[in-house]
């Protein structure tokens, strides 16, 4: 087993564009759940709308990257409004079921063969990044980092992705420390109390849903921009629950939490995958084959999620006193 290689691959995950994409989604979820108490189990749909919005605007309408980005954000925001108006008055556990149901319903629409011309059906869409990568100002040469080499575009997407993460985190920091953020935290604790103090709870929840949704929208765009492919299978419930795991790993009511949570999560997964693959190749795990290693990684996601919620609900960075679960 080549440990240096494994460590390099693991380190690569820390700054990976996919990692940044998940972190953006998790920051959005921190807004929803950590600061407002909304049980949103449909984060994948917001990300999917960002990704499809961008891709369709580019491929079908022929728009440049900035209009396409805006279009993706607007799609996610509209979905937040459409989802929020009927459901935000419902009890928290109903909201969970309705968001996961709406998310799956939406994603299944993207996969339908009849709309193949626009959505690409189950194959999805690809090659929509030309306008975006035209912005790449980096010299066109491969850059070596340890055993990993990155193309100019790969470096560029990483820079953009992590800049978005930093901007998003700053935005969230300003918001949550403002009186507006204080009302949200109040709603998280007890929305009837906040109502009795003269705040329009519904509007705050809707705003939170929209803001967190647009974070996921950006995450979705970053995600598909990396490989320039966007397939409906990406946006299943696993995407949502992976985001939840990252959020809870870092700490739901924190801003640094989702960021470090995402980095730790993917680095750990990559590390484990390589160690397991190495052991399988050495014949030390005769009951496993290589394909099953990937399955074990998912299993670990579930296990981490369970153990976190049971034993450390406040996550890595969360304040024990401000741990996140009511009811």
């Amino acid at each position, binding site marked *: 087993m080549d440990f240096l290689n494994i460590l390099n691959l693991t380190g690569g995950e820390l700054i990976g564009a996919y990692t940044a994409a998940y972190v953006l989604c998790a920051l959005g979820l921190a807004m929803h759940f950590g600061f407002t108490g909304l049980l949103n189990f449909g984060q994948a749909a917001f990300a999917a709308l960002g990704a499809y919005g961008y891709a369709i605007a580019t491929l079908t309408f022929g728009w440049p990257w900035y209009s396409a980005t805006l279009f993706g954000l607007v799609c996610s925001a509209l979905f937040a409004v459409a989802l929020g108006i009927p459901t935000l008055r419902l009890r928290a556990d109903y909201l969970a079921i309705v968001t996961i149901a709406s998310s799956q319903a939406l994603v299944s629409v993207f996969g339908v063969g009849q709309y193949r011309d626009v959505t690409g059906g189950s194959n999805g869409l690809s090659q929509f990044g030309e306008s975006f990568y035209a912005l790449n100002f980096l010299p066109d040469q491969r850059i070596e980092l340890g055993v990993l080499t990155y193309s100019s575009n790969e470096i560029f997407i990483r820079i953009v992705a992590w800049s978005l993460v930093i901007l998003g985190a700053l935005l969230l920091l*300003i*918001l949550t420390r403002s009186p*507006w953020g*204080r009302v949200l*935290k109040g709603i998280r604790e007890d929305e*009837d*109390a906040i109502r*009795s*103090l003269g705040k329009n709870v519904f509007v705050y929840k809707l*705003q939170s849903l929209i803001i967190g949704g647009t974070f996921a929208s950006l995450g979705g765009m970053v995600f598909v921009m990396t490989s320039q492919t966007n397939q409906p299978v990406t946006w299943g419930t696993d995407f949502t629950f992976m985001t939840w795991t990252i959020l809870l790993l870092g700490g739901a009511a924190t801003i640094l939490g989702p960021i470090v949570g995402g980095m730790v999560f993917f680095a750990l997964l990559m590390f484990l995958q390589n160690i397991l693959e190495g052991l399988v190749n050495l014949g030390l795990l005769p009951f496993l084959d290589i394909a099953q290693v990937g399955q074990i990684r998912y299993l670990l996601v579930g296990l981490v999620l369970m153990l976190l919620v049971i034993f450390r609900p406040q996550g890595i960075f969360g304040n024990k006193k401000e741990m996140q679960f009511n009811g």
Partner: protein
Amino acid sequence: MANSISVGAASPGCKKVDPILVADNVTRQFGGLTAVNVEHLEIPRGLITALIGPNGAGKTTMFNLLTGFDEPNSGRWTFDGTDLAGVAPYKVARMGMIRTFQLTKALSLLTVIDNMRLGAQDQPGEGFIQSFLRPIWKKREAQISERADELLQRFKLDSKREDYAASLSGGQRKLLEMARALMSEPKLVMLDEPMAGVNPALTQSLLEHIKGLKNDGTTVLFVEHDMHMVRNIADWVIVMAEGKIVAEGPPAQVMKDQAVIDAYLGAHADTDLGTVAIKTIKAGK
């Protein structure tokens, strides 16, 4: 018997000289059960009114209806001349009618001072766009914090300023909730069982605070289960039983009212039966 509060003699649903809240024909049914059926109700301005009655009399439901937290099957009511039926709870609160809850709703994972600040109105920083522009809301925030500190001092919670509300005792939470309700300088404060679950030492201080509100010119309406508790502080007592107003008047007069005694006797009979049932079960084990 004449008094200075009601127009004419005190009787269930009587008119008041200067009412702040007037309700007509308010009914609320849960399934087949009529929880509230109030023909006419007026709350006198600037005084302390106690709404008493046995468990299940519909006091809390009435509170929920008046503050918009529940929708009635029928009825209209006005607050300070403004029609309130069907108005959302947050709008009711903004008009100056603030309520508390039977099960205290302290915001556990916020600090005591943040709890207080949330009680304030007109903080522009509570708008989404404005929240980014600190200069817009900085000044108001300072005013709010000042008032919050005053109130915390008055309610002897100033030493807990930076603690999470979760760390407060039950009685302190009641105090916090009451202090928070006062942040917006409401015209009418509606307290749902402020004395429930509070130890006797703190009860006295709570009663003093309620009296203090009246001195500030605030109208107080509070729900209480135990009618002896209200004797000392209430100027007016309204008695509910089985969803209806069965008696009202000054405390001393109401205590003698046969309808009130009947209502409570009925309730006591219930309590006794309950106690007996539990004892039987324990014996059975």
